């Protein structure tokens, strides 16, 4: 199974209206070349799931500025004024989720769990419309799994079987999203031969990865 693709071959799978997860935290760990390409292709009406909407010129924020999203599901939009503007103008639906809950919801989707039982958000507007559950006298929210059609991941080193090694704080949501989408495409900073990442040090097993773009591709 050869998983290595040109960026064009890989990005062809992203269509208008899809739900797309994008790794990264304020742009750190975001596959910026994929963002470049999506902007060039001008894919529209995306539902974007990520930690935040980055900055106007960095990360997911560039897709917002280019008006390619109809909805975002994130924990924070404060660093990108354009997200707030579109939200207030009714051009963009914004769903805000506590960061740790968002991480667990994506993990739950990848791990086949039916939901997440978390204390976060109890007694706040986050609990509105959510199922609650009492366990040992304490109240928790039941938060549902979050999946996507496509996950766009960034790895520092990726081998040709799709095993990924992340660098420093660029890891963040990437390993979680790699488990929670129908199609997982990774942007490799460095594409390496199988064996160059020690089996102990693989952070995302290649079994989750469908396509790899990087190196000369």
């Amino acid at each position, binding site marked *: 199974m050869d998983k290595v693709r040109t960026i064009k071959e890989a990005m062809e799978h992203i269509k208008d209206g899809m739900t797309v997860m994008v790794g990264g*935290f*304020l*742009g*750190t*760990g975001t596959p910026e070349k994929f963002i470049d390409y999506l902007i060039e292709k001008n894919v529209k009406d995306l539902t974007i799931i990520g*930690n*935040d909407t980055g*900055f106007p010129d960095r990360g997911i924020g560039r897709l917002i500025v280019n008006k390619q999203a109809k909805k975002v599901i*994130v*924990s*924070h*939009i*404060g*660093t990108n004024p354009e997200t*707030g503007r579109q*939200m207030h103008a009714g051009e963009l639906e*914004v769903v*805000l989720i*506590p*960061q*740790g*809950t968002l*991480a*667990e919801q994506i*993990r739950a989707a990848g791990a086949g769990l039916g939901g997440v039982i*978390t*204390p*976060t*958000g*109890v*007694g*706040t*507007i*986050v609990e509105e419309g959510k199922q609650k559950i009492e366990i040992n006298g304490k109240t928790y929210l039941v938060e549902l799994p979050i999946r996507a059609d496509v996950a766009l991941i960034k790895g*520092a080193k990726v081998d040709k079987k799709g095993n990924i090694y*992340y*660098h*420093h*704080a*660029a*890891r*963040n*949501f*990437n*390993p*979680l999203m790699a488990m929670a989408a129908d199609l997982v495409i990774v942007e490799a900073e460095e594409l390496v031969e199988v064996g160059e990442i020690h089996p102990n040090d693989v*952070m995302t097993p290649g079994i989750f990865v469908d396509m790899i773009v990087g190196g000369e591709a």
Partner: protein
Amino acid sequence: MGNVREIIAKRVAQELKDGDVVNLGIGLPTLVANYVPEGIDIILQSENGFVGMGPQAEAGKEIKDLVNAGGVSVTLQPGAAFFDSAMSFAIIRGGHVDATVLGALQVDQKGNLANWMIPGKMVPGMGGAMDLVSGAKKVIVAMEHTAKGTPKILKECTLPLTAAGEVDMIVTEMGVMVVTKEGLILTEIHPDYTVEDVKAATEADLIISPDLKMMSVSD
């Protein structure tokens, strides 16, 4: 009195114990790291995925992929460790953070905190704040006592909450307050203020501790 932010940061720093895992919010709370007493080693947690965060990186010496949760380039301390966002919040939600220090828009005498949105005006999102306030063992609000004279320490928060009943301590330039079952107790007061000054700047019902101490702000 001296620099208000410095006074607050210094006093908060005294709450930290050797080996504590601490998460500091953006802004004033970040200053706390500068005043940790000699001989006390704390471990800073950054919700974007590591422990062992060091001071801000010098200009020109930024390290690739090494920023804090506000996107600012930082450094690492010896023994640092990176992990993904699920682990980062397992640490936070699981009670492995000994203390979190955050600012507030409002905080009330029941320990409710509002610091993430002003409806119709400012909706940045809660980021990791809700998890931090629910999960950390000790929640310390570090802020100026009022917003240009308007009380921020209230009987009951009017803005959307970050978390209900989770605040343990409030540190301002006027003093130190602790949230208890009995209510909000003023335990320390800054020497530049009287109890009446503090009461006047506070909307909440303030119980004055019979053991009221001077707020210690020396180095």
